[in-house]
């Protein structure tokens, strides 16, 4: 459910409506871990539903990712041979020591899962009436 244009614009931005017609990836990114948490406000006995969510937005920079970008970079040869050369593009390019963001992302992923597990444990300890079921929500796209 995506469309070009919309909102009276000229179509430079892809548009996606909400309203439950979004793709699974959109829905996951939009609603998971967002919103008011009830047990902050009131002691509630939650139904013993456990849900383990993997945040689809977190992509761990892995060797596979590196190889994918290396491949894409190597592919650029084609353009060069085609005569479209590189000069003229050098403005505003910042360089610097590549500070590893990778570790940060890994930590974030671990934290997230731990959070969720911790939450689930709390929920379970509140006398669930139903057997906890572990459920995974996964992004199906990409």
């Amino acid at each position, binding site marked *: 459910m995506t469309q070009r244009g919309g*909102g*009276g*614009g000229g179509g430079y*931005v892809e548009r996606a409506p*909400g309203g439950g017609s979004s793709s699974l990836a959109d829905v996951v990114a939009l609603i998971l871990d967002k*919103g008011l948490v009830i047990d902050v406000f009131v002691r509630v*006995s939650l*139904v013993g539903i456990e849900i383990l969510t993997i945040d689809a*937005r977190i992509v761990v920079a892995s060797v596979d990712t590196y190889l994918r*970008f290396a491949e894409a970079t190597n592919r650029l040869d084609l353009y060069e041979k085609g005569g479209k050369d590189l000069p003229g593009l050098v403005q505003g390019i910042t360089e610097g020591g590549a500070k590893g963001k990778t570790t940060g992302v890994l930590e974030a992923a671990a934290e997230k899962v731990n959070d969720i597990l911790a939450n689930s444990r709390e929920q379970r300890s509140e006398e669930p009436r139903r057997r906890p079921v572990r459920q995974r929500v996964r992004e199906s796209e990409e």
Partner: protein
Amino acid sequence: MNLLEAESPTYIYGLIKADTVLPDGLTGLGPSGQVSTIVHGRVAAVVSDVPLDRPLGMRADLVAHEGVLDTLAARGAVVPMRFPAVVEEHAVVDELLAPNQDHFVELLDSLEGRAQFTLTGRYEQDAVLREVLVGDEEIRALREKIRELPEDASYYDRVRLGELVVHALEQRREGEGAVIVEKLEPFAEAAVSNQLGAPDEVVNVAFLVERDRQEEFENAVEGVGEELVGRVRLRLLGPVAPYDFVPEG
């Protein structure tokens, strides 16, 4: 309200003002498919029954949660609950609303007439990789070296090349993402940045926009999209319920 028995588990989508009329055509995630409200004073919880024979979290559950909230958001203020909000008994909902009524009303007031738009953007890979290549001698040299080696002999160099490129993209997007947000902030009441994923993701920001200024905001996004055409592909999701603008805790 009669569709829910007092002691049955209840799913809560979110909170609305008591005088907001539920639109037709809302589809809940419970077996009945129905959606109703539990009113307490000036606030109401939007609720439904909940499937008891299977775990929650199927695609349809997520879609129903979002569908109900986004449809409500188009009518008036709504505070989304975090998925999945299930209470054991219908009666507990009142326990949630009663002591927090003022707080919830305040929250709803602050969201009245506003909607969320989520803007994401990705680099046009080839264009930006070419920029990276031009700007980095080490990357260029490494690429030349890899070219001269047979594929199985260049594995570690290719990993290293990819790592350098990924870091270069990550560095580049920090500044560029910030510029995009800066340009759009004047058209929004608030903005929240989400964590970026893939290395070519440039921006992922939720904006809270006045309904009256929606078109103005959309045009501004369109303008940024035009400026970035060929380098960054923008995608605008919304209007949706203000998922990113519910205070933590």
